[in-house]
């Protein structure tokens, strides 16, 4: 009995870790996939300047973009979004482990509810169409696919967008 409960709690803990890791890995995964496939990305910055090119290097706080044969270093803190013409990152369906997933989701919210997490998880589950308002006044309507601590992955008309949370002011359902 005791052993069983321990193994279950260990399993839940493991799942939580993997879930947490997958949540944290969206942005680096997206960038490395885009770099590997040599896809042309469209990058919008906070000050509404735009860049288009392929990723050369990925740093922690900045990326090197090859734009018209020259290398441009762009800081992540100034990027608002990255757009890929077709999906780069395939996100696994979250409905695979329905029962256990609910338990895992309920576990952290038991202590202190994470409002943002709940909102985004619900939006992903129900395939809601969200409206994002950015700091620079732009408005985006798209479906959310996944998110991590700093970014939100959206899909819209076959394109895939990666929005940095620091560029978002509000999200409406």
């Amino acid at each position, binding site marked *: 009995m005791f052993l069983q409960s321990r193994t279950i709690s260990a399993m839940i803990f493991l799942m939580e870790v993997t879930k947490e890791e997958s949540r944290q890995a969206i942005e680096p995964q997206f960038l490395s996939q885009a770099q590997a496939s040599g896809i042309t990305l469209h990058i919008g*910055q*906070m*000050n509404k300047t735009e860049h288009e090119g392929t990723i050369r290097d990925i740093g*922690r*706080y*900045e990326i090197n973009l090859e734009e018209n*044969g020259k290398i441009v*270093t762009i*800081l992540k803190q*100034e990027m608002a979004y990255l757009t890929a013409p077709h999906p780069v990152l395939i996100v696994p369906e979250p409905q695979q482990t329905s029962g256990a997933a609910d338990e895992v989701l309920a576990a952290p919210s038991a202590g202190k509810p994470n409002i943002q997490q709940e909102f985004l998880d619900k939006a992903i589950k129900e395939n809601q169409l969200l409206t994002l308002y950015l700091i620079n006044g732009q408005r985006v309507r798209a479906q959310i696919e996944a998110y991590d601590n700093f970014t939100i992955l959206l899909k819209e008309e076959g394109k895939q967008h990666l929005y940095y949370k620091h560029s978002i002011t509000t999200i409406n359902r």
Partner: protein
Amino acid sequence: METNLLDRMLDTYQTGRTSVTITLRNKIRISGRIKAFDSYVIIMDGHKQEILFRHAVTCLSPLPQEEHMRPPATSRPAPVKTALPRPAKIASHKPRQQQPQAPAPSATESLSNTMKDGLLKWMQEHKAAK
């Protein structure tokens, strides 16, 4: 994942003495050579020295002129071989060839041109200031 890619790029531009364009948050572009940098500021060596804070930097790229000069420099041997006999054969093609290869013939010439332009601009500004 590299933790300080920007530092590396700044270092290569500084040691390579390449002219760079730095775009700030308010879309202002500053171009010149990088004289020095640390983790908070960059000192530029343009026609007047200036210090800029790294928290205002959005984008760093080599100056377009320098970049146009560079690709022909690496692939110069091949065009030169074909270019040598051509001008003698057809004179009418000469101007057309010269236009795209303008930065290629000599880096010093175009550099001196930019220096001339810079000097002229500076003189005009100086006159206006007086």
